[in-house]
């Protein structure tokens, strides 16, 4: 039974990953990403991590991808990207090679080295206790400090994002060549709308 779930989950994950990497339209890529997230959630459930599966769906698929789509909508970057050529020389073959080596290497590591590690350092997976309860027990006792800090981190992230992305009345960001952006960012520069086009 689990094999079937595993196969299904793997299929969905890999299809989604393939989609993210190869779809030119960012919106399509985002939807593929959602697929991947669902696949991962399924695999989590297959491995007795129910709470995490729920969190995965809620946080990743429900919030993060939505955020992505909002940004796509805001920036209007749903234009197509030409995947046929890569402007940086040598990047494509190098990237492909690197990816292949990485995959093979990690696989070899997995197959050669047995899964090692100390067993049950934190707590046992007890089938009798519900997963959220078990996680909650550990989280609020042993890892309380980390928990509180991450909450602080979230607040900082939100404030930071607001600070970064807010609309500045005297905004100096311009839409011409990147080289000119530096000149325009000086203290004595006003908005300097460019007269040149963006070159891809």
């Amino acid at each position, binding site marked *: 039974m689990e094999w079937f779930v595993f196969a299904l989950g793997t299929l969905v994950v890999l299809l989604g990953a393939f989609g*993210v990497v190869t779809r030119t339209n960012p919106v399509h890529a985002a939807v593929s990403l959602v697929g991947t997230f669902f696949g991962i959630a399924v695999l989590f459930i297959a491995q007795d991590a129910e709470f995490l599966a729920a969190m995965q769906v809620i946080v990743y698929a429900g919030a993060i991808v939505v955020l992505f789509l909002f940004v796509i909508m805001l920036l209007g970057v749903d234009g197509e990207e030409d995947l046929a050529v890569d402007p940086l020389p040598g990047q494509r073959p190098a990237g492909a090679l690197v990816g292949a080596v990485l995959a093979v290497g990690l696989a070899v590591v997995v197959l050669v080295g047995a899964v090692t590690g100390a067993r049950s350092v934190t707590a046992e997976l007890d089938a009798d206790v519900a997963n959220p309860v078990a996680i909650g027990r550990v989280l609020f006792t042993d890892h309380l400090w980390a928990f509180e800090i991450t909450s602080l981190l979230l607040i900082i992230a939100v404030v930071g994002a607001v600070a970064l992305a807010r609309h500045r009345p005297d905004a100096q960001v311009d839409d011409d060549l990147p080289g000119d952006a530096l000149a325009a960012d000086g203290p004595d520069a006003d908005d300097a709308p460019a007269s040149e086009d963006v070159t891809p």
Partner: protein
Amino acid sequence: MLASAPPAEAYLILSAVLFAAGGVGVLLRRNALVMFMCLELMLNAVNLAFVTYARELDDLGGQIAVFFVLVVAAAEVVVGLGIIVSIFRRRRGATADDLSLLKG
């Protein structure tokens, strides 16, 4: 019926493949948002590995780790998208290749 459950190695190999795919995507895609999405792929691969280990070693610590990865990834996406918004606000194409001011 097949054996009771797929061995941990299977999940781990899947995680490795997913990780590599995400890596390739980061290296080869130019659109900043798509690069970010590929980054999420890599994080998910890691999460999968953690959960696999949690089951293998009968240890809840792996799942706690995933919990934190999830939270921090969320924060990271928030800030990262804020940066992308502030950089690419007025540009027509959000290409990572345009940001090469550090060229030495």
